[in-house]
């Protein structure tokens, strides 16, 4: 089982990287984009444990290290697929 952890900047926090990417997209003629927000995707692979155990582990990892609660939020998504990439 793998867990995909998305770490995003909280709403309202300036994301200069997203802003720059938006400008670049506009320069390419890709219009109609109101906003771009950048984020991190962290993938964890687990051995033979339950979904609940894996979730508890992810929560602890996010709270202690993977996300900074001052500026970031996180969400966790599980998949049975063993492929780590993507």
């Amino acid at each position, binding site marked *: 089982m793998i867990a995909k952890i998305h770490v995003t900047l909280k709403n309202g*926090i*300036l994301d*200069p*990287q997203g802003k*720059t990417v938006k400008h670049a997209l506009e320069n390419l003629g890709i219009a109609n984009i109101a906003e771009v927000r950048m984020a991190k995707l962290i993938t964890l692979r687990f051995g033979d444990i339950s979904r609940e155990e894996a979730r508890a582990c992810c929560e602890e990892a996010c709270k202690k*290290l*993977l996300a*900074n609660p*001052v*500026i970031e939020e996180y969400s966790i998504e599980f998949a049975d697929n063993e492929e780590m990439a993507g």
Partner: protein
Amino acid sequence: MRFGVIVFPGSNCDHDCYHALKHVHKQDVEFVWHKAGGLGQFDVIVLPGGFSYGDYLRTGAIARFSPVMNGVVDFANRGGLVFGICNGFQILCEAGLLPGALMRNRSLRFVCKFVHLRVENNQTAFTNNCEVGEILNIPVAHAEGLYYTDGETLQRLDDNGQVLFRYCDSDGRVSDEANPNGSLENIAGIMNEAGNVMGMMPHPDRCYEKILNSDDGARLFGSIVDWTRQRVLD
């Protein structure tokens, strides 16, 4: 007085701090490896600049869990002076010893230049050799120096005099043009509420003698030495 300069894997201003304290300010200084335990023998702990653990995940996020950081937290909680410069500031925020976070510069660029700082509070262990409103000339060198915190904390920092330095122009005006990284309210350095933990993005360790373009950094190290000497003698 004994100063400890913490050395993380990736610290690169540790020798600057050591040299300034040892050879310019004539203090007793030791390097402290990141795996060290207790810090009871020291009067002041310095967290130097650099790129600890390659800045992986977030600046300071991994260093904050170095074994020595347990000692730094104990040392701070007992009232010991802790001074974080640049990456040291980032680590202190990640460790929760200072409020807020340092984020990517507004320009997305690494900014390396001399800037002007206005002294906001001189009734501190770190700035007692300065005047309020005085303008210091000290360089910055960082890509993640945008100070951010929530509105409530920002208000508290202002109310308690915890903001020690703001970026300003050569006339002392705190303006957006003078803000090198987009920090909220041009904040360049803050201390904790107790007044014993301080962090700043600019580098006093790069300007403590005239030959380095400015010796304003010596004012900060000098403040710490004077304050600590007084306290040790008392």
